[in-house]
């Protein structure tokens, strides 16, 4: 399942191959393992230098676990993650720590992800201390620069997180992520806890920083409108697997997976005229448990196009686009939608 063909002009920064993360379920007095929650169950994709890859899906689909497993914040059950051609999964601890400088994370909840006992200066300087970058004076200068970079006043340095609004806190989180000058950032639902008018501020900031610093993002979100806005390519996840992956406009204008189609048709559009004319695909039921996923194609119990083969065979994640413009989809009947 190589995706390099045809994309030769773009440099691969991060390569994920057959990544799995299973959480064991223990029961009984002896805590015997009786099963596993297969949160991420074999995902493969590349992220190119300087792009934003949007990862979307509903709650419980494994998108956040994917992000954390890529950064080795969770130990993968199986699979490889190549960052700059080095496999992070079998890397030694000290080397992994060195690599971590280059990969940072922005978290969803700006209230829970900042230590309330540290000043803003302390929070943003922490990664610098961990990686022994600079002396105290240099760190303070760096923190001031970072605060200005994310649109905060440098004199905020002595204040505490509770003195800030949600949007400002998320800016602090962004400043912390940028402290070690990383090239790759996983943003895990960075705006979903914010009010609408503040969301645009933070998204614009992320966009500007990407251009200014040449960053590469994995942008994890459930808000499909925002993902279309910010991403270059989009991957759609369902129950631990990526079901569709292509260029942003390709995914949104010509979705080939029935789940993507349903997901897109469910997004409310802020325009009453369009809403009045829309035909919705209303999915029956809810997402099954990842501890006991359906046989064959995981989407088949909710899929209006499902046939016998969908019940039996797990569909291959294959390219139905061209070499130059790949469009990957995992559906037996995807040709129907070409």
């Amino acid at each position, binding site marked *: 399942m190589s995706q390099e063909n045809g994309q030769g002009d773009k440099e691969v920064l991060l390569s994920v191959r057959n990544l799995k993360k299973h959480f064991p379920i223990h029961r009984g007095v002896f805590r015997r393992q009786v099963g596993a929650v297969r949160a991420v169950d074999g995902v493969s994709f590349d992220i190119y230098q300087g792009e934003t890859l949007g990862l979307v899906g509903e709650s419980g689909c494994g998108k956040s676990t994917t992000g954390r497993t890529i950064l080795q914040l969770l130990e993968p059950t199986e699979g490889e993650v190549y960052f700059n051609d080095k496999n992070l999964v079998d890397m030694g601890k000290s080397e992994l720590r060195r690599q971590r400088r280059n990969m940072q994370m922005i978290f969803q909840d700006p209230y829970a992800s900042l230590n309330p006992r540290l000043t803003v200066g302390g929070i943003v300087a922490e990664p610098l201390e961990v990686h022994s970058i600079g002396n105290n004076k240099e760190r303070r200068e760096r923190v001031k620069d970072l605060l200005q970079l994310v649109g905060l006043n440098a004199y905020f340095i002595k204040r505490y997180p509770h003195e800030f609004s949600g949007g400002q806190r998320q800016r602090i989180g962004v400043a912390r992520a940028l402290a070690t000058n990383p090239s790759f950032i996983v943003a895990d639902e960075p705006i979903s806890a914010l009010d*609408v008018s503040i969301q645009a501020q933070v*998204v614009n900031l992320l966009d500007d920083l990407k251009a200014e610093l040449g960053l590469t993002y994995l942008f994890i979100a459930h808000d499909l409108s925002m993902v279309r806005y910010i991403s270059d390519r989009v991957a759609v996840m369902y129950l631990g697997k990526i079901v569709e992956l292509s260029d942003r406009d390709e995914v949104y204008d010509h979705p080939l997976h029935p789940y993507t189609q349903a997901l897109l048709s469910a997004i409310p559009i802020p325009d009453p*005229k369009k809403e009045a004319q829309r035909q919705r695909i*209303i999915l029956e039921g809810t*997402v099954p448990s990842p501890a006991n996923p359906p046989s064959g194609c995981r989407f088949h119990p909710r899929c209006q196009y499902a046939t016998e083969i969908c019940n039996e065979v797990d569909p291959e994640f294959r390219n139905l686009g061209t070499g130059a413009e790949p469009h990957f989809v995992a559906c037996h009947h995807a040709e129907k939608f070409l």
Partner: protein
Amino acid sequence: MAPLLDVRNLVTRFYTEQGVVNAVNGISYTLEEGESLGIVGESGSGKSVSVMSLLKLIPTPPGRVEGGEVIFNGRDLLKLSRSEMRRVRGREITMIFQDPMTSLNPVLTIGRQMTEGLKLHLGMNDSQARKRAAEMLDLVGIPGAEDRLSDYPHQFSGGQRQRIMIAMSLSTNPALLIADEPTTALDVTIQAQIVELVKQLQEKLGMAIIWITHDLGVVAGMVEKLAVLYAGYIVEQGSVFDIYEQPAHPYTLGLLQSLPKVDAREQTRLASIEGLPPDLRQEFDYCPFAPRCPYVIDKCWEENPPLMATGRDQASACWRWETVLTEKSRFGVEEV
């Protein structure tokens, strides 16, 4: 004919140790029978408090409804006694909330919780109430309704719990259903299911709906009328078509332009409303949106604008609504 609900000049304040919070500052709207109204605003805009006030659900102290009238079916709800009010709530006006898990009692069966209101409000006996509850569950699409009455809330998924809440709130045949962000905690495909369900039920049962939300997308396809709240004031209200087509208040305009368009190839930079919503511990003798407004003029700082009719089915609390309607947007590409 008098409207079903006529809210006039509602004022609610909270007396806290940190000062008096002016949560709702004289808002007025009407709702006809079977009509649907969307109340849109961000956190702290007063959207939930305004509705809690008319149901007398504001915790007192610290909160107090300090002014206005709420005429519902010819009576002023604010003048009713506690026991009279209890007969209105849960029977003539019912509510569904954001988080169905916290609004259902986890230690009682669904059947017990659903029949309670029916027995209390409609004087049904046990078997009548169970029958009605099963009918309602069936109506909201819970399969095997009769058997599931003996299940507990945790045995249902989030979407199903919200369906149960809807079944419960419609079982007494209310004239008005108030939905306070009922889909915010749900995934987008489940949200679509619930919105579709409420629309169908409204057609079938004919109740009026107040739908409170922060999501301009959800209400667009859901309601006929809209009220946009900011700092406890209605800053714009009118027909949902007119407002979305041409907002006459800068705040509404900014909100709409800060949303990315999922159905458009051309992605223009999002407009962002700079700054933060104001502290509500002050009296506004100026326009509360003035500090964030790109259309601001001296007059905005001198006098808080009232709602003014724009000639269309729309009213705006902006001195410069004509400029906002006609001029190209000033929410533009600002550098961060």
